């Protein structure tokens, strides 16, 4: 079986000439259909840049990203994105937000209502359907953002630190919810995080990235059975191992910050 997402010799530089920052350098990565992959690393390691390249928001300086063998050139609804800042449209109600992607495709009102109804149920949002985003908690907003992307039935889910702004309890609930959705819907997920525990809790595979220029330091398969227990010994052994890698990169980040070159 061919890879779902294939990243080949990908590099991304920001800026011009002497001021240019190499965000990503020669990344090669294959993500299979239905796989849950986490991109892990300190800030400035280019993990969000890599996600934005897969989403098609930015274009590579060299190399390419392809999905099902077709090269990515622009953003599209086949790769649904969930942002850390939610990015819900504040002038639309929960229902309207979830139905937006369907309505711009020209679906009939009745069909949209049915699909939105299913998603409200799936994400336990029924009682909030008529509310505006400003009247929702962070956790609820992120549920709406996930529902909005699921409405399009995209085979790929891209998530950019989606739970980064949530409190620990809400975070765990949403992580479990996401795992439930993933196992039901069999999406391919690329999930960016800087939390080692979150990465091990969720992913089939944790891709640890180096600080600038971003390269792949370790491609770690996570074999632990689900549901995973963050207090278990094997969980913690893996956490310690990855922690050493991430901390080393974090040190490099701090070092360059001291020298005054870090921008991120």
């Amino acid at each position: 079986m061919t890879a779902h997402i294939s990243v080949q010799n990908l590099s991304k530089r920001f800026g011009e000439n002497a001021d240019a920052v190499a965000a990503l350098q020669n990344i090669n990565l294959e993500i299979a259909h239905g796989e849950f992959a986490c991109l892990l690393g300190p800030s400035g390691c280019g993990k969000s840049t890599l996600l934005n390249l897969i989403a098609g928001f930015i274009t590579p300086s060299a190399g390419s990203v392809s999905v099902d063998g077709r090269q990515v050139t622009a953003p599209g609804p086949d790769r649904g994105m969930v942002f850390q800042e939610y990015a819900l449209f504040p002038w639309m109600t929960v229902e309207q937000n979830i139905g937006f992607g369907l309505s711009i495709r020209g679906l009939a009102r009745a069909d949209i209502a049915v699909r939105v109804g299913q998603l409200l149920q799936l994400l336990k949002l029924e009682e909030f359907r008529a509310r505006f985003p400003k009247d929702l908690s962070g956790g609820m907003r992120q549920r709406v953002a996930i529902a909005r992307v699921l409405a399009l039935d995209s085979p790929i889910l891209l998530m950019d630190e989606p739970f980064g702004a949530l409190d620990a309890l809400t975070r765990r609930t949403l992580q479990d919810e996401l795992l439930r959705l993933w196992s039901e819907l069999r999406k391919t997920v690329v999930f960016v995080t800087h939390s080692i525990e979150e990465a091990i809790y969720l992913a089939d595979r944790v891709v640890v990235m180096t600080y600038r220029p971003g390269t792949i330091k370790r491609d770690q398969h996570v074999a632990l059975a689900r549901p995973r227990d963050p207090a278990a010994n094997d969980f913690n052994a893996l956490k310690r191992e990855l922690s050493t890698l991430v901390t080393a990169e974090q040190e490099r980040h701090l070092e360059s910050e001291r020298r005054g070159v870090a921008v991120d």
Partner: protein
Amino acid sequence: MTVWARAQRFSGFALPLLLLILWQALASAGVVQPMVLPSPLAVAERWWTALMPAQPYDSAQGSYLAWVFSGELPHDAAASLWRVLLGFLAGAIPALPLGLVMGASRAAYTLFNPLIQILRPIPPIAFIPLAILWFGLGNPPAVFLIALGAFFPILMNTIAGVRSVDAIYLRAAQNLGASQGTIFLRVMLPAAMPYILAGMRIGIGTAFIVVIVSEMIAVNNGLGYRILEAREFMWSDKIIAGMVTIGLLGLGIDVGMNRLNTHLLRWHRSAEK
């Protein structure tokens, strides 16, 4: 609610009331001539007379409602408001799409901005002579001047509004498969709405100023005309009655705009009470 809290709630009305009493006292004492400063009671009487129908009700002449509004004041107020509405629409209808395009496209901004920056500082009042030359007397020059007054605030705010749209909404819309046209209408326009409405509020305020001035020059009805006419006869009570009406209408328009604002922006954070 304590007595103190209740008293505080009405404290804003105490000052105007005190001024009214002082004014009435000055007039009653005969310190100032009535022609220079008529008493508030005289103004109120004049206002009431102008508000009421001049003829007794006669069912043969038409409906009761038409009779109720047949007084001089309702006629003038309606004429002024009609001009404000026409002029406001004539200013807002081109300002809105132009502002959206200038806010979204750098090329359009570069093309139009110098011309707009030259024209914008010229007060609409300065266009009066030209407006009369171009459009003659009557409603057309008045509507033109009011449109000018409404055009620029709406344009400038629409540009600022479109520029303030958070890029993440555009990304999210693109990601969901929205075309450029859809993004324009369903993302940029509503996201810029708080700015646009603020511009409209300023625009309608300017329109209200300009309508009074243009009625003093180009037409022969409306509140501005009536004030100037009263001056010819030295009816200072009627002048002040006209000014009070203008104040009340302006307040009414502002309250109306505020209501509209709160309704349209009920999704907005700052609309929270």
